[in-house]
């Protein structure tokens, strides 16, 4: 008899932490309230991964490629509990995007994120109204406490 095969994960990977979202263990952290998030990143890989991670916790997540698109979305009335913004966006950069979002009165939690952590970038982002600034990758260790905070 062959070993049982999980067609989704060939090796039926498990052994993840309870904080991760290892579906094969049946353990699933999920947000309690209806939370929404926006990912702002010019890279397709990061947009895809950050969106999937947030959605895996039940957060209704959208992604846009530019700061301008994010500002337009919010100007049109969309609201988000959490906005994750890449530092080095083309044209309008991360901090400038955060500044404009704050100027519109958005109360969202804004998380600045970057490929390379740099203290000057951190200062710029925080001064622009971001609540926090981290280096990629976006991890469960970062996201879960944020979701818990937003849930309460």
């Amino acid at each position, binding site marked *: 008899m*062959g*070993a049982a*095969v999980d*067609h*989704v*994960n*060939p*090796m039926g*990977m498990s052994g*993840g932490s309870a904080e*991760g*979202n*290892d*579906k094969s263990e049946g353990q699933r952290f999920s947000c309690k309230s209806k939370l929404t998030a926006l990912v702002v990143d*010019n*890279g*397709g*890989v*990061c947009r*895809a*991964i*950050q969106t*999937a*991670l947030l959605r*895996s916790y039940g957060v209704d997540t959208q992604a846009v490629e530019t700061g301008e698109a994010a500002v337009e979305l919010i100007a049109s009335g969309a609201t988000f509990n959490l906005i994750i913004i*890449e530092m*080095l966006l083309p044209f309008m950069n991360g901090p400038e995007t955060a500044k404009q979002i704050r100027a519109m009165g958005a109360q969202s939690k804004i998380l600045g994120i*970057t*490929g*390379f952590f740099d203290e000057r970038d951190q200062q710029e982002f925080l001064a622009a109204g971001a609540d926090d600034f981290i*280096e*990629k*990758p*976006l*991890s*469960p260790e970062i996201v879960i406490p944020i979701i818990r905070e937003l849930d309460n």
Partner: protein
Amino acid sequence: MDVMTQLQRQWREHTAYLRKEGYLDDQFEQLQKLQDENSPDFVAEVVSIFFDDSEKLLNNMARALEQKVVDFKQVDAHVHQFKGSSASIGAMRVKNLCIEFRNHCEAQSLEECVRCLRKLQYEYSVLKNQLEYLFRLEQQIRAAGV
């Protein structure tokens, strides 16, 4: 040993090898955890985007370094994006080369940048082959399980 068991063993061994040799780190496992019934091809899809983006970035870096007057800030911007994407999928060796590359951009050292780009192109193509092999094994496992 039946085909399925053999394939699964190959998959396990190859994944362990990639981790041990530092091609992939824990972040790749995080991606695998995001794959489920609703998105059964998530990892392959994201890696496919990674391949496309990486090839564009590497081309952009090469072209930027060929200019008469090199704009190191522009090169750095490409490296920044590559570091972010490689860190996000767990491509550790590629990510570490990006860190090295950035230092050369900051020093505005053309020769070192060109050398580093070649190393990066090499590591990327090795990683691509390794991942494509892994996905081929997965396809075979799925086919054998039907």
